[in-house]
C-alpha cells in the first residue's frame, strides 16, 4: 500500500516538472512553429544564475525569482535578436522548416559551451529549500518529501496563473489569436511580432522555474536538463503539441507511466517507458491527445 501511495505521489511531482518543460516547448511551438531545443540550455543557464545567487546570498527563494525573471529575459532576447532575424531572412523553400530548428540546436550547443567556460564542467548542487526526507506514512518512510510537495504546489500555482493569463486577459487573447492565425491577428491590429516575443518570454520563465525545481534533487552541470528536455518534448507530443492543457496531461501520463513501470516492473524501464507511451499514443491518436484535427499551415 505504501509502495502504491509513494508511486502515485512521485508520479505527480515528476509529472509536474515534465509539465513545466512541456509547456515551455508548446508555448514556443504555438507562437513560432519551432521546436526550441535551446530550451534545455536556457533552463540550465538560468539555474546556474540561480546557483550563483545562492552562493552570494544564501537564499534559494531569491535565486528562484532571479532564475524565473532571467528565463523570461533570455527567452525574449533569443526571439527578438536571434529567431526573428532568421525568419526575416528565410522566406521560402524547405529550409523554412529546418533552419530555425537547427538554429535552436546550435544555440543549445553555444549556451552549454558558454556555461562550461563560466562555471566549469564539474557537478554542482543546489540545496533544496525544505527537507528532502520522505514523509512517514503508517510508520514507513516513503519516497515523497516536503520538497516534492513544494514542487507540486509551485507547479499547480504556475498552471493556475497561466490559465488565468491565457483565458481571462487581453494579453492571453492576443497570444491565442496570434498563435491560431497570425494573419488575421495582424489585420485586427495586434502586433504579432511583439506577442510572439512575449510567448518566448513566458516559455523561458516556465523553463527557469523547471530548472530550479528539478536540480535540487539532482546535479547541476551543463547538460543537466537534456533528459528533461526529451521528457518535456515527449509529453508535449502526447498532448498534441498545440494544447497547453494537453502538455500538462501528457506530462502527467508520462510521470505515472515511468514511476509505475520503475516501481512495479524494473528500474531499467525508466527511459524506454517514455518512448513506449509515446509510440502507443501516436498509434492510437496520431495527432496527440489534444491536437487539432485539421492540419494547420505555418
Amino acid at each position: 500500500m505504501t509502495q502504491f501511495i509513494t508511486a502515485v505521489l512521485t508520479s505527480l511531482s515528476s509529472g509536474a516538472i515534465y509539465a513545466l518543460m512541456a509547456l515551455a516547448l508548446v508555448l514556443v511551438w504555438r507562437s513560432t512553429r519551432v521546436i526550441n531545443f535551446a530550451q534545455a540550455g536556457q533552463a540550465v543557464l538560468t539555474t546556474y544564475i540561480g546557483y550563483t545567487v545562492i552562493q552570494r546570498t544564501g537564499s534559494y527563494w531569491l535565486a528562484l525569482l532571479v532564475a524565473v525573471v532571467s528565463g523570461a529575459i533570455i527567452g525574449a532576447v533569443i526571439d527578438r535578436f536571434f529567431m526573428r532575424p532568421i525568419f526575416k531572412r528565410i522566406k521560402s523553400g524547405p529550409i523554412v522548416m529546418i533552419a530555425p530548428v537547427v538554429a535552436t540546436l546550435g544555440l543549445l550547443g553555444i549556451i552549454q559551451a558558454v556555461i562550461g567556460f563560466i562555471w566549469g564542467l564539474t557537478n554542482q548542487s543546489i540545496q533544496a529549500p525544505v527537507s528532502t526526507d520522505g514523509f512517514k506514512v503508517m510508520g514507513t518512510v516513503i519516497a515523497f518529501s516536503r520538497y516534492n510537495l513544494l514542487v507540486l504546489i509551485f507547479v499547480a500555482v504556475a498552471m493556475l496563473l497561466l490559465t488565468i493569463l491565457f483565458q481571462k486577459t487581453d494579453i492571453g487573447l492576443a497570444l491565442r489569436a496570434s498563435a491560431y492565425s497570425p494573419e488575421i491577428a495582424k489585420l485586427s491590429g495586434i502586433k504579432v511580432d511583439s506577442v510572439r516575443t512575449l510567448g518566448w518570454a513566458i516559455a523561458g520563465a516556465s523553463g527557469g522555474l523547471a530548472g530550479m525545481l528539478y536540480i535540487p534533487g539532482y546535479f547541476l552541470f551543463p547538460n543537466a536538463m537534456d533528459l528533461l528536455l526529451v521528457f518535456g518534448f515527449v509529453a508535449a507530443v502526447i498532448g498534441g503539441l498545440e494544447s497547453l492543457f494537453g502538455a500538462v496531461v501528457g506530462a502527467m501520463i508520462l510521470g505515472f507511466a515511468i514511476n509505475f513501470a520503475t516501481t512495479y516492473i524494473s528500474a531499467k524501464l525508466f527511459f524506454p517507458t517514455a518512448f513506449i507511451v509515446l509510440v502507443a499514443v501516436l498509434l492510437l491518436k496520431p495527432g496527440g491527445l489534444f491536437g487539432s484535427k485539421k492540419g494547420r499551415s505555418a
Partner: protein
Amino acid sequence: MSLVVSNLTIDHGAIRAINNVSFTVPQGQLAAIIGANGAGKTTLLRTLSGLKEAASGSVSWNGDSILGTRPEDLARSGIMHVSDGKSVIAELTVKENLALPGIWRKDKKDVAVATSEVIELFPILGQRLSQSAGSLSGGERQMLAIGRALIARPKLLLLDEPSLGLAPLIVEQIFQTIKSLVKKMNLTVVLVEQNAMGALKIADEGVVLNLGSVVAVDSAEKLLNDPAVRAAYLGF
C-alpha cells in the same frame, strides 16, 4: 481625403500580378474592383493592407503614403482588411473574435458601444457569442469578420470577396449591409468581387481588372451599362 493608387506594380514570385494600376477612391465612396479569377484582385488588396510588398508605384490614404506600412499599424490607423471568405479565427469564440480590436483600442467605452452596434446590425452574432467561430455558417462568419472590423471604427474598409461561397439571399443581405454602412459611417470601401453584377449595383465607382491591368475605370452605373463590360463580366 481619398485613397490614391498610382502606377502600382506587384510581383508574385516571378509573375507580374499587378501591372501599373492606378485609380482613386474618394472618401465616403464605395469602389468595386471586379475581374475574372486570377486578375490580381486579391493580390492588390493584400498590398493595400500591408500583407504584401509592391514592386513599384505608390499608394496614399488621406495624403499619407501607406505602402510598406505593417498591416497591424494600418489596422490601428483605421484601415481594416477583411480577407477572403472566412476571415475569422475558428478556434476562438465569436465574442473573442469581436474583442480583438478592443485589445489595442484606448477608448474602451467606445469599444463597448461599437460592439453593441455590431450586434444590433447582425443580431445572429449576439445569439452565438459563446460559440466557437468555427461552428458558424459561411454567412455568419462573413458577418463576424465585417463586425470585427467595424469595432475598430475603420475609415477605410478593404473587403475581399465577401460573397464567396454564400447563398444568393445571404449575398444580397451582406451587400445591402455594406452599402448602408458606407452612408451611415462615412466609410470608404474597396470591395473586391467576382460577383461583378452584385458589386457594381451597390458601388459608386468600378475598376475592371484583367490579367493584372486596369481595362476600365468608371462610375459603377456606366460600367453596368457598358456593352463590353456586360459581355465580359456580367454574362449578358
